[in-house]
């Protein structure tokens, strides 16, 4: 008679382990590819507040994949998209990436989640050597130094802020400036970009604030901004924060010339800001939906996604779409037998690939960052859209 249940548990776990070992398939040279299918993986925040960007980016990937599949796939192979939720928690991003690479065995990666999450998974991606195109959060650490298999589409936060502040400074000479930033990596980057222009153009900064991530009430911050007499204001929030700031300024009866950054440049924000958001300036490297390119993209997307997904489209859908287009084109150029090495080599050869949603994309030997062209746009609350101004 077995007296110890631990023995029974041990027998059971040994049997499970043996079964797992037996079930492990033999690993091919480059996984994620069969005669009929190519698997592309992605890890995004699909739940919680950051889902606004994660879901939109994944819709962009889906549009490009649906478009390619409708045209017969990649050299006859249909593309299957494997998507994993990380909830914007870094440890789960790492696990998610390891899962799609090792368990789902994808051929290439798109995405991936936020800036901190992308930075954290960089050793995993490098070690795996899997072709990866990052499109959600372009931060310098991802391409400096360049990694062989990791390509980044977009523009750096620093360059974006410098472009916006330069534009506003040229348009509003001699005015008093105000700035508020978030107390995280994003906020530090915005502040650094701002400070570099302040120094170069000798701007008169009368208000400089910092708020805690997640802050909802900006009444005292905006009151201080009003009392400082700032005439040009750089709102360094993301979505809810910028809305709260603009509503507060409206309540206080002041309307400085305001600039926001691309993480918050999504159309629903304008609806929530109401008249307070009219005329605010934004900087971005993707086309506004109000322009001809934006409208063409929406027309293309409509038949390829569900109604619910169509409603979730925002600027991140465009970045996701562009990344997926570039990756698919690179795999396609490898012909009938694509491999990781060939895909990486073809990604490197990417030269002026037109996606219709941003300026043509190029990489090169040792260049893993597409360095997209920036443009300034202005909000129009009547049409709830951003329109290019330059």
């Amino acid at each position: 008679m077995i007296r110890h249940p631990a023995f029974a548990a041990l027998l059971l776990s040994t049997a499970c382990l043996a079964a797992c070992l037996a079930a492990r398939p033999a690993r091919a040279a480059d996984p994620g590819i069969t005669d009929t299918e190519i698997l592309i993986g992605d890890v995004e925040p699909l739940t919680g507040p950051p889902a606004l960007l994660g879901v939109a980016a994944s819709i962009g990937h889906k549009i490009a994949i649906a478009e390619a599949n409708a045209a017969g796939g990649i050299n006859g192979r249909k593309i299957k998209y494997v998507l994993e939720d990380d909830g914007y928690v870094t440890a789960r991003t790492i696990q998610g990436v390891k899962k799609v690479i090792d368990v789902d065995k994808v051929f290439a990666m798109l995405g991936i989640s936020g800036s901190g999450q992308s930075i954290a998974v960089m050793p995993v991606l490098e070690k795996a050597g899997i072709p990866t195109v990052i499109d959600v959060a372009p931060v310098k650490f991802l391409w400096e130094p360049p990694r062989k298999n990791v390509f980044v589409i977009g523009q750096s936060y620093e360059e974006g802020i410098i472009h916006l502040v330069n534009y506003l400074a040229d348009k509003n000479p001699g005015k008093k400036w105000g700035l508020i930033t978030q107390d995280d990596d994003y906020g530090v980057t915005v502040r650094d970009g701002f400070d570099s222009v302040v120094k170069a153009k000798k701007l008169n900064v009368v208000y400089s604030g910092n708020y805690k991530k997640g802050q909802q009430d900006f009444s005292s911050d905006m009151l201080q901004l009003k009392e400082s007499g700032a005439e040009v204001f750089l709102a360094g929030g993301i979505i809810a924060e910028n809305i709260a700031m603009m509503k507060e300024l409206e309540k206080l009866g002041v309307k400085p010339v305001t600039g926001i950054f691309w993480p918050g440049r999504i159309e629903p924000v304008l609806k929530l800001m109401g008249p307070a958001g009219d005329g605010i300036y934004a900087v971005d490297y993707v086309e506004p939906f109000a322009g001809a390119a934006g409208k063409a993209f929406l027309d293309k997307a409509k038949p390829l996604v569900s109604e619910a997904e169509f409603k979730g489209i925002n600027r991140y859908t465009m970045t996701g779409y562009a990344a997926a287009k570039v990756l698919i084109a690179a795999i396609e150029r490898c012909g009938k037998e694509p491999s990781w090495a060939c895909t990486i080599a073809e990604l490197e050869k990417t030269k002026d690939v037109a996606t219709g949603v941003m300026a043509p994309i190029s990489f090169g030997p040792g260049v893993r960052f597409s360095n997209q062209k920036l443009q300034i746009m202005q909000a129009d609350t009547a049409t709830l859209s951003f329109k290019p101004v330059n």
Partner: protein
Amino acid sequence: MRTGDYKQTYGELVALVDSPPVWLWSAVLVLALIAAPHVLNSYALSLLTVILITATGALGLNILTGYTGLISLGHVGFLVTGAYAYAVLVAKYQMHPLIGLLGAGVVPAAASLVVGAPSLRLKGLYLAITTLAFSFIINTAILEMRWLTNGARGISVQRPQMFGVSFDGDAAFTYLCLAIATLTLFATLNIRRSRVGRAFVAIRDNDTAARVMGINLHAYKLLAFVTSAFITGIAGALYGLYLSFVSVEGFPFLLSIEALAILIVGGLGSALGAVLGTILIGLLPEATRIILGLFSAQMDALFTTGAQELKSMLYGLVIILFLRFQPRGLVGAWHDIRRTWVHWPLRY
């Protein structure tokens, strides 16, 4: 016929394990864990690594909340302090990783004196809120001390190389986590059966009675905080190494709640409970996904794309079910099974 586990001497009562077979099965388990990195894929290995790190942290919290009865909602503060202590010492000042690991324990232990001092006058919910406030203060301090911590930009950390062994690979890093988790388990088991551990339990059960028996409440409560923070800080350093990037964002408040959930589900006041709770909470989403995936591919997809919301719901459900049907946690259930096994067909 054996009718139960009877302790006839004091030595038997304070023995680390019940009987030689338990040693044997424990050794077999350790051997299985040593073999695991060679047979598991990278994803399964990452799950195992996180479970080992979480078990270390949960064992640390168990000393404070399980043994001593002092509820902490701010243990993530010690976790992040430990991670930053390691990152600053090793990545910024290029010190030896062992000094980094020691610092990862010592710095949170020193910080725990700050939060431990009010615990001498506070109890229950009031203490929990104090520890919660501590975790917010720590985060703000880290963000403001840019000269030392890089503020919001965080610090990249490389996995260590010690005694000629590189822990850069996933398997090697898992071994490091396994070694530390095993040491922590032995340490906490030994603390529990020592004079100090009995004093902790006496304070938990009735601090007035404990004081009457001559236990110095101030000293032992502070000792519980310091010991718990030391272990949690080392878990924080391992977690930082796992993430390869230490920033305040990588240590959300939710980790404190998860740690408490682990203790409740595992069984408060038991080292074995902390380990079992960690395994259950760590593997619950994965096991659920596999089971649901057997029935429907759509359910599997739902779990993949809405994973974090479903995970939160599962955690909540499991805690409610345990509190309602098995308040003694997994370790209580294990004792029930063992008793039933030994006494069957008799009930007692």
